């Protein structure tokens, strides 16, 4: 069997396992509520589990696993990833204030020593909680995206990877994650809407992975993104959060910075690939 065909098979097996575990976990947690916490953990770690199982099933081995930390000369990507996440979350909070809370201004932001303390505490929690998001990135960035790049052009690989990652969120979105329940076309429109930021944010994470040849900067960036959701405490005190936090509009607004910034990384990755191909032709 030629290697491209084998790679396609591996991509299919990986996708089926990763999404299958999530769907199974959510179905079982509805039936066996006592197991909800345990099943949620397995759902979150499903991309990593899919990576390992796919390699075992297809006898691929564990080379090119992106598990080297590669700190030397790459610290800027580690800290840059955390800074990127902080910037995106901050911009998301700004979008909410500007468009969904018109009765409030920046002067109403609850910025005191306590809220700064919570934000700094969340940053420090990146150190202990990164393993949770390692479960995702070890699948998406360390396996799926490189495999897709072997069988299709880079832009298409990033789009397909983003769509698979976005659709992996289908079950939680059907339970109200990111967009709530009250929008037309629930949950299908939410699934489509989720795929767009995952394509572009995925490009940013792929950029970090490729620059360092390590999955860990992407892990740190993604962990910081989740930990710094606490930036919502900056929303003005007394602001009506019912429309602010769990609504379709809020979900889209928060993701706009992801899309804009991610598009820059998307372009950088595609440009780099084009330059490499041009050099190859010249040689």
């Amino acid at each position, binding site marked *: 069997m030629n290697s491209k065909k084998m790679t396609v098979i591996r991509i299919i097996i990986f996708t089926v396992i990763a999404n299958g575990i999530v769907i199974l976990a959510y179905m079982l947690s509805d039936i066996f*509520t*006592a*197991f*909800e*916490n*345990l099943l949620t*953990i397995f759902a979150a770690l499903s991309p990593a589990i899919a990576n390992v199982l796919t390699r075992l099933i297809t006898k691929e081995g564990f080379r090119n696993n992106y598990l080297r930390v590669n700190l030397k000369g790459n610290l800027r990507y580690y800290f840059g990833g955390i800074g990127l996440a902080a910037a995106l979350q901050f911009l998301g909070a700004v979008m909410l204030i500007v468009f969904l809370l018109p009765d409030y201004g920046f002067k109403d932001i609850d910025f*005191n*020593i*306590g*809220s*700064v*303390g*919570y*934000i*700094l*505490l969340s*940053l*420090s*929690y990146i*150190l*202990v909680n990164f*393993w949770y998001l390692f479960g995702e990135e070890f699948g998406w960035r360390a396996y799926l995206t490189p495999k897709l790049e072997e069988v299709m052009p880079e832009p298409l690989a990033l789009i397909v990877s983003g769509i698979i990652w976005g659709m992996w969120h289908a079950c939680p979105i059907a339970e109200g994650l990111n967009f709530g329940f009250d929008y037309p076309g629930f949950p299908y429109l939410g699934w489509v809407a989720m795929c767009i930021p995952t394509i572009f944010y995925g490009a940013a994470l792929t950029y970090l992975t490729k620059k360092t040849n390590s999955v860990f900067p992407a892990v740190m960036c993604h962990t910081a993104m989740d930990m710094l959701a606490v930036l919502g405490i900056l929303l003005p005190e007394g602001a009506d959060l019912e429309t602010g936090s769990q609504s379709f509009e809020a979900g889209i607004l928060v993701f706009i910075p992801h899309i804009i910034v991610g598009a820059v990384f998307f372009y950088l990755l595609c440009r780099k690939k084009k330059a490499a191909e041009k050099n190859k032709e010249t040689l």
Partner: protein
Amino acid sequence: MYGLLYKELVLNRKSLFVLAFVDIVIYVLFFFMFGSAVKEGVFDESSFSDAADIFSCIYALLIYIFVLIILPQMFSTDESKRWSSFVSSSPLQESGQIFSKYMFGFIILIVSFIWSYFAEVIFDTALSVYYGFENKSLLSLNISSAMVFAVLFLGAIEFPFYVRFGSKIGSSVKMGVFFGIDLLAVIYFLFGDLSVFGSLDSLWEFLSEVINGEAFGDTAIFALSLCALSAFGLYILSYKISCRLYMKGAENFEQ
């Protein structure tokens, strides 16, 4: 580098095995103790949940106390002049040797955190399935998170002493730190406000507020956040200091 990490794992496997074994035994014992208490009608749903939380928090503390005991052993295994000469002449040099120690310590901490997370979830699930009482608070994770930073901070202080003076003298630094903490506790018990110890309910209420962060004001939260962030920074600084002290300390090792 990965070879040195593998070496640490192999040399310390017995301690790690004991740690894992003791953790499992404690959980199994408590599981059956809870079972007996439920059968005898000691708990209702809310007291069961509180008891499970108390146990989980104590368990989280115990894990990290074991880790504190185990971590310095990784220095004693390499206290040999021959080894230090070999490693300093290798491409990794003494910085690689020290980096492997610090990285191994950090990995053990993170693995302990993940272990306590899974152990709490499995324990709560087992209690819910067998005894019918649900407890999904995962309160002990706050303690676990705090203990990771506390152990990082303590390691940052004591590891350079282990590197410079060896494990015998280095361990006295840890004893000194714990003695200091005990002294502070004694002073507090002699002169401080002991109203929270009036009853078990008031004590548990106070502890819950501390674990959930509700007992702290804004300034205390800010100070705690700086301590947490600085713990990792201090750990890295400690690594740099240990690199400089390694060869001086190696002169005191046995052949």
